[in-house]
């Protein structure tokens, strides 16, 4: 110790020690002396300890005081003010909350600007399931995958949790103060320098608030960026009507539908309602007189093409040619028939003639549906044909959109670069990730002094923002939505915001001068003006029903919408896009489409959607360049091989996927992947297709393609295989069905047996649960898959496990092809557990972990299962799923957060088998409810999760013992068949064969004669496509 050498006053120390009171311990003389040199030494040698030494003495009493105070204050933080806002449960208001019983709230969810009505099931105050709201005209009780998966997004642990100023957490109050302080500048400059960028939202109250701000401050700029649907609403038909108009289709009146890449079953706004209308009409035709027929010409396979009676792949240029030729034949006054065919038609002349004849025959009952991603020419031509056929006003009507045509992101970038924007509010958009590659969005945003970002995640845009405000999830916030048909529905929160999120309405409220904007108050104020008196009762009615305003616009036959000048519109569209030119021979046409699972990238962090097998490719966790198998063969490419797409200065390397039915020379890549800040799950998944997008042509691009050395093993849940033996999917032509209804699809062996009937017997006492799935109606949309996942706590396993064939979905949608590789017909078949009466899984289990209930359910007893997996080996349908690892362990990054779990369904541990239970928890809940009411269960009391999610009512579940039940009625139809009936498993789940209605002339002209789906003996070509 160096201090010792310097010496000190030992006498002073003695005196001080003598004076000391109480126990005072000392360790060395220097310390006891309190010497300054000791202090210096301490600071030099042990700088960390010096501070401690000088700290004020802490005694026992002080410690206890501090502890007591901390404990007391810790409790204080848990207290919050419950919002004083009334929300109303749907229809049946329980007298008091029953713990363990679900409560449903009518609400609505918006996806890509389109609202659908939902009922949110909550348990003890937390939402656990989303169901469709049958009272909502825009969706009629149907839901799609996005609505079903919204639940997981609500509990997403990666959601932004606080207001941030340049990345540093701060508070809403600070943010509100800053925005309010900016208001004088806003008012003084009439809004000069202020701008708002909205995403694809079409919430009436948000749009109205921005309108109101613009009215007050005329210089305020408003931009809109819709990455999924780059064409502004109604813009394609603006030249025809003078103002933008959006088409609205009426499939319930359509007898003949020609889709020009118009995916009205999959992606068009209103697809839920369209699917319901189209298939309702189509199903009635089985005994009705007016059969519907659907021709689909498509640039890339879609759900609509898969359901079409005739599906013809057509490259984009050929599709324009077809539209022109059709218009020439049917609407000569708009587009005179060209002397020579305008280009290579996707079909032979005889087929074209058959198509034209069919359209003429249908007349006003025909409907031509163009794709929203198609160039304006196709859209104008299609609607001109509708007009010429007299369909306008009958099967299609036109409506002005609810929002003005707004400048897009390119205008925003130009204005920002010109220094005209000082403050920008980005409300629910992520332009930094979703901008076309030719727009320097990030540098332009960097020039903006005050960039406010409202979004659910700390995404790519939030990283650049001055202010980031967490956006409340639609399930936890007040709001409103507008459906494609103008139906307006309220969004009521079912839980207090988990992470203190705010809504666009509240941020706009700040700009409007509200010191403490509350979405509830703002929303009510907005609707109080519009609903009129008696407001309160109307408001409560809207909350209860989930619908605030019925569809707008003309609905009847008489109203065709305004007169349209199609000739001028076509001329304008032609001059915009130049002559139809086929791309150079060596080049490919690349289509950029929103992804069927993650749309424009906003759902990238939703593990349910990432792991959802895309309807046609069955790919999960990645996007890929879809290529025609013939093209891939020429280039000697296998699935997953890398190619580089080049267009101008843009290049992108991506794996390929061979997709039967993809037109030759056309590539499709879906958007939304390659997120750089997409959360734990979404970051870095797939390739970023926005890097090939341009502002001028956002949906289509001519690209060069060349091979790369790399290979990405893609996680697909189904390979391309041919069927053998009994066809799993059966189809009958309508013509055949009319003639010989008895034989239709049934080619089943007799089930006569010496053994007694398996228990329970049909028609015996008690219930006999069964399911019927109508393959005519199944459009392969996957809503049932996600609904099942949400209802039954099905874990997500991740890309690597999916690649190894270990996905856990209890319900899978099988996809089969028929016909040639270049233009196959596609069939979908949902396969849940069949609940066989002679279940092969049951007798092989050594520990009796899977058993038959007296009501015919094949039950899985997880606690008893030891994981021999014999049941799965012996299941001919392979519907059982095994927990190879502990997928539900909370530490797993992919594990579904516990609050999202359905409390009625056990979460399975590793090493046990699981499978579809026919939603036994719902059966039991209905049984208990009926028992409490002292009545018997009636048909419709039990609806399985897949059934209630299905947009087309393909799935019916019920009691076979009740001959009047819907399922029993369906099973008596001649179309009813059992999958693999020859195995005598006697499945309780059966199918109705798909009914197709092809045009024989068209078929002949295409050179295809369809063989009815009968037994196909012989050996398939293994492994190949």
């Amino acid at each position, binding site marked *: 110790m160096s201090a010792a050498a310097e010496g000190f006053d030992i006498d002073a120390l003695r005196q001080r020690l003598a004076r000391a009171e109480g126990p005072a311990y000392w360790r060395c003389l220097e310390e006891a002396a309190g010497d300054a040199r000791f202090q210096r030494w301490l600071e030099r040698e042990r700088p960390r300890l010096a501070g401690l030494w000088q700290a004020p003495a802490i005694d026992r009493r002080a410690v206890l005081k501090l502890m007591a105070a901390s404990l007391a204050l810790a409790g204080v933080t848990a207290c919050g003010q419950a919002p004083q806002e009334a929300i109303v449960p749907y229809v049946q208001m329980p007298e008091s909350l029953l713990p363990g019983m679900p409560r449903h709230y009518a609400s609505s969810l918006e996806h890509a600007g389109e609202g659908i009505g939902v009922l949110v099931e909550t348990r003890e105050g937390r939402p656990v399931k989303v169901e469709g709201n049958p009272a909502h005209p825009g969706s009629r009780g149907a839901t799609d995958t996005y609505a079903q998966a919204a639940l997981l997004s609500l509990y997403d642990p990666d959601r932004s949790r606080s207001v941030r100023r340049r990345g540093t957490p701060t508070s809403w109050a600070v943010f509100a103060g800053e925005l309010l302080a900016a208001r004088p500048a806003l008012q003084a400059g009439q809004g000069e320098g202020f701008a708002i960028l909205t995403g694809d939202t079409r919430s009436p109250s948000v749009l109205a608030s921005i309108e109101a701000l613009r009215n007050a401050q005329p210089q305020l700029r408003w931009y809109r960026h819709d990455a999924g649907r780059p064409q502004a609403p109604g813009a394609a038909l603006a030249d025809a009507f003078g103002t933008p108009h959006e088409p609205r289709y009426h499939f319930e009146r359509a007898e003949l539908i020609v889709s020009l890449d118009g995916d009205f079953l999959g992606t068009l706004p209103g697809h839920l309602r369209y699917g319901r209308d189209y298939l309702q009409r189509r199903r009635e035709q089985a005994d009705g007189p007016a059969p519907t027929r659907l021709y689909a010409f498509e640039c890339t396979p879609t759900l609509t093409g898969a359901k079409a009676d005739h599906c013809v792949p057509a490259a984009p240029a050929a599709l324009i040619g077809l539209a022109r030729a059709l218009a020439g034949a049917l609407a000569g006054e708009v587009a005179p028939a060209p002397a020579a065919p305008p280009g290579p038609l996707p079909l032979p002349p005889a087929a074209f003639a058959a198509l034209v004849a069919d359209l003429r025959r249908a007349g006003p009952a025909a409907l031509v549906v163009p794709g929203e991603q198609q160039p304006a020419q196709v859209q104008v031509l299609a609607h001109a044909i509708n007009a010429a056929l007299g369909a306008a006003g009958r099967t299609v009507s036109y409506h002005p959109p609810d929002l003005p045509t707004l400048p897009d992101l390119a205008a925003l970038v130009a204005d920002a670069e010109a220094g005209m924007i000082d403050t920008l509010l980005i409300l629910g958009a992520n332009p930094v990730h979703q901008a076309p590659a030719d727009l320097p969005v990030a540098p332009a945003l960097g020039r903006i002094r005050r960039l406010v970002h409202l979004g659910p995640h700390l995404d790519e845009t939030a990283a650049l923002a001055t202010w980031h405000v967490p956006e409340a999830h639609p399930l936890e916030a007040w709001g409103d939505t507008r459906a494609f048909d103008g139906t307006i529905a309220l969004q009521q929160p079912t839980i207090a915001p988990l992470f203190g999120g705010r809504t666009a309405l509240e941020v706009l409220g700040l700009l409007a001068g509200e010191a403490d904007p509350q979405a509830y108050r703002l929303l009510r104020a907005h609707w109080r003006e519009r609903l009129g008196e008696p407001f309160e009762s109307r408001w409560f009615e809207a909350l209860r029903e989930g619908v605030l305003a019925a569809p707008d616009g003309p609905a009847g036959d008489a109203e065709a919408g305004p007169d349209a000048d199609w000739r001028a519109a076509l001329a304008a569209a032609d001059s915009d896009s130049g002559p139809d030119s086929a791309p150079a021979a060596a080049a490919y046409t690349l289509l950029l489409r929103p992804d069927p699972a993650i749309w424009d990238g906003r759902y990238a962090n939703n593990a349910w959607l990432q792991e959802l097998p895309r309807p046609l490719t069955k790919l999960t966790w990645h996007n890929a360049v879809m290529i025609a198998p013939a093209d891939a063969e020429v280039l000697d490419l296998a699935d997953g091989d890398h190619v580089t797409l080049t267009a101008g200065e843009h290049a992108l390397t991506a794996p390929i996927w061979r997709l039967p039915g993809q037109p030759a020379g056309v590539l499709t890549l879906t958007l939304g992947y390659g997120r750089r800040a997409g959360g734990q799950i979404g970051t870095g998944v797939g390739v970023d297709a926005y890097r090939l997008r341009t502002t001028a042509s956002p949906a289509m691009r001519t690209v060069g393609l060349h091979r790369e050395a790399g290979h990405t093993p893609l996680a697909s849940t189904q390979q391309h295989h041919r069927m053998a*033996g009994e066809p799993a999917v059966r189809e009958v032509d309508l013509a055949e069905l009319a003639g010989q209804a008895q034989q239709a699809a049934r080619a089943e062996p007799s089930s006569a047996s010496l053994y007694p009937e398996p228990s329970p017997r049909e028609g015996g006492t008690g219930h006999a649960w069964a399911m019927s799935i109508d393959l005519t109606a199944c459009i392969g949309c996957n809503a049932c898959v996600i609904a099942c996942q949400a209802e039954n706590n099905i874990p997500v396993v991740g890309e690597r496990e999916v690649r190894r*064939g*270990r996905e856990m979905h209890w319900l899978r949608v099988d996809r089969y092809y028929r016909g040639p590789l270049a233009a196959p017909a596609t069939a979908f078949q949902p396969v849940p557990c069949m609940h066989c009466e002679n279940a092969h899984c049951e007798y092989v289990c*050594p520990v009796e972990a899977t058993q038959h209930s007296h009501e015919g359910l094949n039950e899985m007893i997880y606690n*008893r299962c030891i994981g021999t997996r014999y049941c799965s080996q012996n299941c*001919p349908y392979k519907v059982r799923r095994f927990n190879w690892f502990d997928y539900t362990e909370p530490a797993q990054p992919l594990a579904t957060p516990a609050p999202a779990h359905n409390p009625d369904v056990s979460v399975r541990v590793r090493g046990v*088998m699981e499978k579809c239970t026919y939603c036994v928890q719902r059966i039991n809940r209905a049984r208990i409810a009926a028992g409490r009411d002292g009545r018997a269960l009636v048909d419709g009391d039990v609806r399985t999760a897949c059934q209630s999610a299905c947009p087309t009512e393909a799935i019916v579940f019920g009691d076979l013992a009740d001959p009047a039940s819907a399922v029993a009625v369906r099973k008596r139809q001649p179309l009813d068949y059992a999958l693999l009936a020859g195995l005598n498993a006697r499945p309780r789940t059966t199918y109705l064969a798909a009914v197709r209605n092809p045009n024989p002339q068209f078929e002949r002209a295409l050179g295809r004669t369809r063989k009815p789906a009968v037994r196909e003996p012989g050996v398939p070509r*293994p492994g190949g496509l």
Partner: protein
Amino acid sequence: MAANPAQALTARLSADVLERRPSPLWWLTLVLAGVLAAIFALALGAIFGWGPGWMGMNIPVAWAFPIVNTIWWIGIAHAGTFISGVLLLTRQHWRISVSRIAEAMGLFAIVLAGLFPIVHLGRPWFAYWLLPYPNTMGLWPQWRSPLVWDFFSIALYLIFTLVFLYVSLLPDLAILRDRARRRWQRYGYGLLALGWRNSARQWQRYQQTMLLLSALAAPIVVAATGVISLDLSVSIVPGYHFTIFPPYFVVGALYSGFSMVVLIAIVLRTARRLDALITRGHIDRLGRLMLLFSLAVSYAYLCEIFNGWYAGEAYYWRVYADRWAGPYAPMYWGMITCNVLLPQLLWLRGVRRSLPLMFLLALGAQLGMWLERYVIVITSTHRDYLPSAWDTVWPTATDWALLFGSLGVFIFLLALFVRLMPSLSIHEMREATGPANGPEPAGAHPQHTAGSTRA
């Protein structure tokens, strides 16, 4: 003492165990096998700790390599039982040179065969639920499930093999006890010898017991493999569902068992210079047996294909088409090469008497039989009924660790066994080497002469 050949033999064989210092080769074998065994333990730890997902399995193919390995090891185990039991009954004189090692091999193989089904389980810690014991759940195993039969047949086989080996070891343990110089050897072998005193009464009981066990051996061999094959044939999976499976599996198991005996005999003969005891004539006879069972296995393959065709079921026929040309075709044709084509060389006397060729053929047979189980277990479900559910599985690093690790465990245990126990049956060798009436080693009852009760 040296004048009596039986005495000399006893001295030499017991000295092998009691006196001889282990050779460097033995140490090398032990260490290498020990490393493999440690890898095996690691793989087991991963599977028990995290789940069976470490192995290459998925939903259409939920049974894969652990089941392949089980059947493979059972086949190897059969050799031991067959040699010691059936050949004893049929009084095959040459069998004594290999019987002890074959029995030990059988025991270790059955232990591994019994371990793999537990590795296969999703929740291995509940494997005991297959036992019919009174429990609070009030549940018994499901007697209709072949897995329960399997459990009992493997357990029975394990007990049988253990008893057989132990009983046959008893006189030798007594010899070792009596000749041991070290204290631990005297106590160890003494305890294990269970008080064997070489009395005539004991010998009589011994002979009766061995005769009885030998008589049981054949049915147990047939039952064990036959019941395991029922796991497959009771199911409705095309490619599993064949009534021919029990005999098919038995001949397959014997084929693999005999080839394993060839391997062990050649290794032992070379390593321990037992040329006089294990002659080329013995190897020749084993070669003939291999040929016989190879022909039987080939017949089973043909029969299976015929059934697949004759049944007229597209699903069944597709299984074969897939085996011939699908993703697992290399395994199928490898199996045909190893089990059908190469064994045809055994028609040649020169091949049967050539140790290197026999060694290679026996190795090939082991590989072929592993591939056979691979083909049966995996290719049947990977494309069964609905094409949408089809998928393939491939072995993972864990699967290889388990396979080669189990070989390591097997060799490790065998190496320990040949150090601690006489790898040739001393008392049987003494009988074989002549009149066998020389005086017994110290401590034995003089009135008894080994083999006198067998005439």
